[in-house]
């Protein structure tokens, strides 16, 4: 018998700890392994935390995510070679959702890009960050400098009371609208704050030095409307908001058109192409894609979860990519990747769960309306 020493060695690499690891544990956070980190999955319970965030304000520690700076010579051009979004004309302190594409047009990661005065600031998924860095280094010219900000923590403060709560500490954040960002200071801490998030609610994402993270989290949680919220509720909130989770609803095989993310392909880029996978992506824009990410409403109370196969009669027509119980709606919901022929809203399908067929219907997303603080609203 041989021993696989390398596999053994890899198995022994422990999870990394968040800068706020002790803070979470002290507040009753139940820690689980996620994306190579010990992360709080819940404090008092997923349901209560989910509903709290929809009604008040929830503080999420998402420091496992990758915060990356692009500087040097023409970072715009380099980034545009691997994403289908408009980067060159993105104004200072504005951000957009984009997709890192492979040469075949599959999605390697989804990310947020912000133009700042002196750099492009990216936030990428924790589970993909090292692969993203390697991919960018390999495809970008040497003159583009790529820096992982691993000394920065990242918080999200989400919910209808998030703006009031954060403005009680930093009044100027009230001036930000959805997908705008800026630099702020608070008691000697320098903060990068954007009005954005992953719950469908109004809210902010706050980047700050790891050394300040606990103090700032304490200041936020001292406000009556703010509670720490775990990964479990983060997942159910984003599912209700119809927002895809990379590695589940999107993967390397999935194109932006299949992922129902056409909005992330900017007008100029459609006309000009010139990004990785453009041939496939532009072809699918013109002729349609073979598959599409859709929402599903589920009959009855039993959740239909990731991996469940979907049928139209005897024909396998897709697979559930994430699913669960929607606390705000009191019913199960799901996202799925289905063949184009059954992607129309209202199409009746069946999901197979433990040998049993459950009726599902293709449904419009978001399941719970977004409540972003957009520019055209007051």
């Amino acid at each position, binding site marked *: 018998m041989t021993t696989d020493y390398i596999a053994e060695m890899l198995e022994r690499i422990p999870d990394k700890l968040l800068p706020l690891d002790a803070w979470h544990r002290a507040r009753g956070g139940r820690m689980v392994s996620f994306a190579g980190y010990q992360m709080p999955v819940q404090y008092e319970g997923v349901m209560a935390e989910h509903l709290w965030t929809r009604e008040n304000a929830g503080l999420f520690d998402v420091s496992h995510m990758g915060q990356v700076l692009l500087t040097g010579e023409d970072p715009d051009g380099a980034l545009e070679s691997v994403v289908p979004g408009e980067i060159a004309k993105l104004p200072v302190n504005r951000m957009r959702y984009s997709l890192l594409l492979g040469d075949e047009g599959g999605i390697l990661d989804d990310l947020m890009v912000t133009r700042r005065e002196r750099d492009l600031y990216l936030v990428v998924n924790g589970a993909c960050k090292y692969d993203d860095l390697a991919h960018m280094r390999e495809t970008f010219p040497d003159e583009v400098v790529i820096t992982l900000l691993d000394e920065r923590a990242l918080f999200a403060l989400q919910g209808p009371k998030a703006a009031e709560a954060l403005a009680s500490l930093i009044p100027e954040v009230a001036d930000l609208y959805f997908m705008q960002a800026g630099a702020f200071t608070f008691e000697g801490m320098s903060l990068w704050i954007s009005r954005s998030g992953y719950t469908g609610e109004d809210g902010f994402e706050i980047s700050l030095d790891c050394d300040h993270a606990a103090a700032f989290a304490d200041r936020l949680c001292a406000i009556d409307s703010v509670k720490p919220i775990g990964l479990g509720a983060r997942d159910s909130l984003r599912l209700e908001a119809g927002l895809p989770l990379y590695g589940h609803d999107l993967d390397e095989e999935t194109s932006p058109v299949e992922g129902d993310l056409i909005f992330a392909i900017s007008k100029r880029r459609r006309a000009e192409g010139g990004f990785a996978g453009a041939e496939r992506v532009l072809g699918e824009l013109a002729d349609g894609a073979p598959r599409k990410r859709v929402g599903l409403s589920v009959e009855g109370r039993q959740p239909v979860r990731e991996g469940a196969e979907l049928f139209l009669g005897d024909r396998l027509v897709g697979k559930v990519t994430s699913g*669960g119980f929607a606390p705000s709606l009191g019913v199960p919901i799901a996202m799925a990747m289905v063949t184009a022929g059954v992607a129309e809203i209202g199409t009746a399908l069946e999901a197979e769960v433990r040998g049993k067929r459950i009726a599902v219907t293709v449904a419009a997303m978001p399941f719970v309306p977004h409540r972003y603080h957009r520019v055209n609203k007051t």
Partner: protein
Amino acid sequence: MSRYFTEEHEWVEVEGDIATVGITEYAQQQLGDVVFVDVPAEGKQFDKGDEAAVVESVKAASDVYSPVSGTIVEGNDVLADEPALVNTDPEGDGWFFKLELSDASELEGLMDEGAYKKYVKGL
């Protein structure tokens, strides 16, 4: 009447040759908010260790195994409409099913309350 426990965090309450089965307080805490329970129908037969019921929380689906062999005499139908009973009263009204024991000697392999408490402490 005596109560037994399994390493899978089920409890078994035995009265005569009828065993009532549910999940423990520890199990409901681990599961979190229960949103769906599927209990077996009357007449179904299970061997010890068979998947007998399903409990789903917001987070995940879990199987409930039959801790002993027997034939179902009743499933707790109330759980269909009130799955949260599993959270609020797991070792009482939140019971899953009752079965008629086919081999009472299987109970000897289960833990009593003291042993189970010790087992949970060690987790």
